[in-house]
């Protein structure tokens, strides 16, 4: 007898989290552009506030449009639920603030987006949460950096800037031995390219601004919990396993078991920090997710063609992409990322800053801006933009050079992309 079957990824991307609107019949997800919700009576109001009934009270805590997005991403990732936030940075902050208190410690990969590095390395330090950064290339580095106060391991699934492939199974094993969870930034891989929880991650977040949305019209984040980490058994997370005076003495784990992390993140984090998602933003991101399963293969297909072109171009010093045999994580990428290594990668241009500037200014299809994961192809030259004050020696400390160019490959005709790059490379060679 054949067992029951789960809906496929493509079906979930289109349907999870939403029924046609029962009042209007609207098939698309309606935008519930409202701050608040009418109570049926005083008893109903009290029950909602005291978590005796499910429902919406105030859109900073939950909103029907945002809830569809949260449930859909949770379904695609295989989590117990999700919380949508104002940005990816807000999602990272919400995760850390829900779990850690002053005096506690994080071990993080040093291959991180600059914003995450700033939050962990500087801002949270002011609030008593310290982070030790380690190279993710050897998972044992995480173990060596752990302290008795360590409460979280963190890394990007594809690190910045060298596309280090995070060895999630090994690092999760180290985390779990120590009774702490592994949080990953899954922005570059999306649930289409990697099943993060199946590999061992406990929590993840996306900058939904990037591939989930894909259209570059909305800043958004989403934090997802696998529900697999046993906070009670760990004994290290009083925020989830001890009565909390700030929420009527609630012990979140006792109250809700597998939902404890999300319950506190929503009931405290969204309530107090307030970095919630606007309903219109959720609507925009949902439009993107409905085609995620169609866009990601095309992103990867175009990227492979561009990587191949650049790898043999005389003006290019080197291309960094885990599918290339010379990448240090090539074997790991084959194992963890069988559907492709994403669509964002750096390459080294010969000729330094002047060549880089000329290359950027000669492109016609690629857009020069500070974002990735858009349907349109994007480019940035750190040495003349985000890192322009740095010397070559300082750039090297960040893992880049004066000739480093980062591309985010979009969905255009790959021949047009290659032609654009070829023209700009020739112009750069003359600079």
């Amino acid at each position, binding site marked *: 007898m054949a067992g029951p079957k789960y809906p496929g990824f493509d079906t*979930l991307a289109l349907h999870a989290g939403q029924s046609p609107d029962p009042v209007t019949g609207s098939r698309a997800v309606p935008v519930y552009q409202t701050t608040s919700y009418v109570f049926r009576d005083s008893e109903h109001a009290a029950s909602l506030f005291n978590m005796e009934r*499910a429902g919406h009270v105030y859109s900073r805590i939950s909103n029907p449009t945002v809830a569809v997005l949260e449930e859909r991403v949770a379904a695609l990732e295989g989590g117990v639920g999700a919380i949508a936030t104002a940005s990816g940075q807000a999602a990272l902050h919400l995760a850390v603030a829900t779990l850690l208190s002053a005096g506690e410690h994080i071990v993080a990969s040093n291959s991180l987006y600059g914003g995450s590095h700033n939050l962990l390395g500087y801002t949270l330090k002011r609030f008593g949460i310290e982070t030790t950064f380690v190279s993710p290339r050897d998972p044992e580095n995480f173990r060596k950096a752990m302290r008795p106060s360590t409460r979280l391991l963190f890394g990007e699934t594809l690190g910045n800037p060298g596309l280090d492939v995070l060895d999630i199974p090994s690092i999760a094993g180290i985390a779990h031995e120590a009774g702490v969870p592994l949080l990953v930034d899954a922005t570059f891989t999306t649930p289409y390219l990697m099943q993060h929880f199946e590999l061992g991650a406990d929590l993840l977040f996306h900058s939904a601004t990037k591939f989930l949305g894909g259209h570059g019209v909305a800043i958004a984040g989403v934090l997802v919990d696998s529900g697999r980490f046993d906070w009670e058994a760990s004994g290290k997370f009083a925020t989830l396993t001890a009565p909390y005076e700030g929420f009527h003495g609630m012990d979140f784990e006792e109250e809700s078991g*597998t939902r404890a992390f999300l319950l506190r993140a929503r009931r405290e984090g969204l309530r107090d920090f307030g970095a919630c998602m606007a309903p219109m933003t959720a609507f925009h991101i949902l439009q993107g997710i409905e085609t995620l399963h169609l866009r990601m293969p095309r992103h990867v297909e175009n990227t492979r063609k561009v990587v191949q072109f650049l790898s043999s171009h005389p003006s290019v010093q080197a291309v960094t992409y885990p599918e290339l045999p010379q990448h240090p994580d090539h074997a790991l990428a084959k194992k963890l990322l069988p559907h492709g290594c994403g669509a964002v990668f750096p390459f080294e241009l010969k000729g330094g800053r002047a060549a880089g500037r000329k290359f950027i200014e000669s492109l016609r299809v690629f857009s020069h801006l500070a974002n990735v994961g858009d349907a349109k192809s994007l480019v940035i030259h750190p040495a003349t933009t985000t890192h322009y004050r740095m010397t070559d020696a300082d750039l090297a400390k960040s893992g880049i050079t004066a000739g480093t160019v980062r591309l985010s490959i979009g969905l255009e005709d790959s021949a047009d992309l290659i032609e654009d790059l070829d023209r700009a490379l020739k112009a750069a060679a003359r600079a």
Partner: protein
Amino acid sequence: MNFSIDNRQAFAYTAAHAFDAGKPTLAFLHGAGLDHSTFGLQSRYFGYHGYNVLALDFPGHGRSEGPPVSTIAAMADWALKAVKGRLSIVGHSMGALVALQCANRAPDRVERVACIGVAYPMKVSEAFLDAARRNDHAAYDMETIWGHAAQAPLSGNPHPGMWMYGDMLARLRRLARGVLYNDLKACNDYRSDFENVKCPVLLVLGKRDVMTPPRSAQPLQEKLKNCTTAYVELSGHSLMAEAPDATLDALVRFFSGT
């Protein structure tokens, strides 16, 4: 609340209230492979509305120490030890059979019983039992998929931001090996004439339940002397999650006698 039965640690959720001898007591008994938190909203409601609530974790489930108890009759004996004095009971699925067994075993103590998502006999398919016996993940998949209405994965969750399938799978993955099989076998094997059940019994049945379809509760409706039924539209077997308000409303009406 942690307590001890037969020198083993056990747990009951009390909605953060101390026991008050002046209040009626309501026990909540969970289904196969699950724990007290499946009644999260409903048990909390009664805890804040005049009842001593004890949402139990059966041995080997949630926070209660194993090993699991192997028959419905033994589970009922355990529950009657865990809760002192007179009580009413809300049971879901396996917990509903235990609740009925409690009422049959101790008719002088059990005042009312609400059975959510129940069938009698509670036959479990050989494929499901076999997968659970082998500790195959397919058993968790079966419980998850058959445990919800067919439309559940493609529709909204009343709990904002939560994914029902993911939540159930996460609970099941925390089980020790053999626990789900223990529970399913106990359900499958249980037989009773319910002859001593005299108290009022409410059946709360999901119209889209494929695990315990409403028609399979008919023998109970015939055997139980004081039985009423509330049908819940659009819900499968996980009524507390799929239709939390309708389920709670049915319970409130029943226990308030309205």
